[in-house]
């Protein structure tokens, strides 16, 4: 067992590469089933009257894009299918291009047939520095924080935001969050004091910390890439077009996830076997 104890970590790295790369190259797929916390978010968006006002905050940057972008896309698709009005923003400076990318991908390209108009069906408020202070301010007054949208158009001149005063006007808040500022701050400064329904999509690292807020302060949570996959499946069950594999980024990424998880378990077991063997092989004094 000495070889196991002396194993060069680069063999471990190589095994991780293969565990993720092979399922990706073979385009393997595994089935997913939505869990109650994901369905709580899905059902809320589904049950809101068509044309409800939904604020989505992209509280992440490129570092968490692999986990959160599929969630953002799936949530936006669902809102578009329900013709909800979208107010988009970000608390992260490097989240701004990701908001624009999501707009281009979903609202402009995929839903071109729906004829969504900027300022009527959706608005991009962009980014403002200040972290949670931004939430605290818009909880009281949108105009103080965002007199204009990201393209310098006055909120008063846009039909969607002309009558918007504060967060209390929103039917639903959604934070897709990778850390600080993110879901915790939306709970602390918006959903808790204002009692507005809040749904979140969270990275795997942040998700376990969000559970204590459920159900009083959070109506549901899309936890990690699996949360995104479950949401995509839920969407595909109601809107069959979205059960196509190319519409399911999250589901696609669950196959590499499966093999990598098995590898991690295998490595922990192997590591313990190596440690135990050392104890037995060591000459007793």
């Amino acid at each position, binding site marked *: 067992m000495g070889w196991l104890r002396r*194993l060069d*970590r680069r063999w*471990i*790295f190589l*095994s*991780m590469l293969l565990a*993720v790369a092979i399922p990706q190259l073979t385009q393997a797929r*595994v*089935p*997913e*089933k939505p869990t*109650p916390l994901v369905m709580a978010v899905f059902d809320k968006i589904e049950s809101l009257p068509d044309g409800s006002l939904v604020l989505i905050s992209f509280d992440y940057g*490129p*570092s*968490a*894009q*692999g986990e959160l972008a599929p969630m953002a896309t799936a949530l936006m698709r669902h809102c578009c299918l329900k013709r909800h009005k979208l107010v988009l923003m970000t608390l992260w*400076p*490097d989240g*701004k*291009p990701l908001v*624009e990318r999501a707009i*281009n991908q979903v609202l402009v390209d995929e839903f071109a047939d729906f004829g969504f108009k900027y300022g009527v069906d959706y608005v991009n408020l*962009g980014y*403002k*520095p*200040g*972290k949670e*202070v*931004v939430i*605290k*301010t818009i909880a*009281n*007054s949108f105009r*103080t*924080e965002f007199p204009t949208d*990201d*393209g*310098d158009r006055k909120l008063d001149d846009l039909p969607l935001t002309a009558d918007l005063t504060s967060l209390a006007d929103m039917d639903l808040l959604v934070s897709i969050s990778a850390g600080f500022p993110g879901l915790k701050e939306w709970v602390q400064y918006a959903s808790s004091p204002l009692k507005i329904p809040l749904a979140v999509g969270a990275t795997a690292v942040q998700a*376990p*910390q969000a*559970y*204590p807020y*459920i159900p009083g302060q959070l109506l549901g949570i899309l936890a*990690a890439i*699996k949360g995104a996959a479950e949401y995509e499946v839920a969407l595909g069950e109601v809107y069959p077009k979205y059960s196509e594999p190319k519409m399911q980024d999250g589901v696609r990424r*669950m196959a590499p*996830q*499966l093999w990598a*998880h*098995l*590898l*991690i*378990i295998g*490595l*922990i077991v*192997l*590591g*313990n076997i190596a*440690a135990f063997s050392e104890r037995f092989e060591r000459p007793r004094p």
Partner: protein
Amino acid sequence: MKSTIPWLIAAVAGSVVIAAYFIPAAQSWQDAIGQWFEVLAAVAFILGGANLCLQNLQKISARQAGWGYAAVTLVSFVVTLGVGLLKIGVPVEDPQHPWAGSYQAEGSAEWWLFEYAYNPLVATMFALLAFYVASAAFRAFRLKNAEATLLLLTAFVVLLGRTYAGTVLTAQVPDEYSAFSIPGLTTIIMGVFNTAGQRAIMIGIALGVAATSLKVLLGINRSYLGSGDG
């Protein structure tokens, strides 16, 4: 004096924000403080950038080890800053206001740098952690005692339960006992045990934050002002 005035500033700013929670009339003061705060948050980015610039300039001028990489940092910094501040390549929407477009509008130079340099670099840097987690799993997680065993068994259940493996491994469990399947156990772990543990941690942190905030506002804790005369 050098710590009394800063403390008074901190105390007044904090007290106004607290007062606004209870007195609606004070909300406009809180909004004003929030706006000033946001300006300082933006200035902090400039301060950080300027600091980085100075440090790398010092490294280059002193020809310290790795000064070539400091030069690469500096060039990347200056180029990104220049194209961003000058809005190079930003499409002109309104000929009357050619500078009004967004600094990182799609197709602009800043957008290109974000999309093809910043984005892959940051995302890959975080992706590296997958390999180190694997290495740590092999080298560090040992069944040393009951607590470590509990931690590892929980991790195994959740790792399996969050993928299709959990479903396959306990496919034979009847529906009425689905709570004892691996996905069912994962749901219980997250919804009950994790929630209880996280809630206790959350309550502890909340008390800590409240105590620290009070100390700052009352002037008992002035460590944020740094050491030195005061």
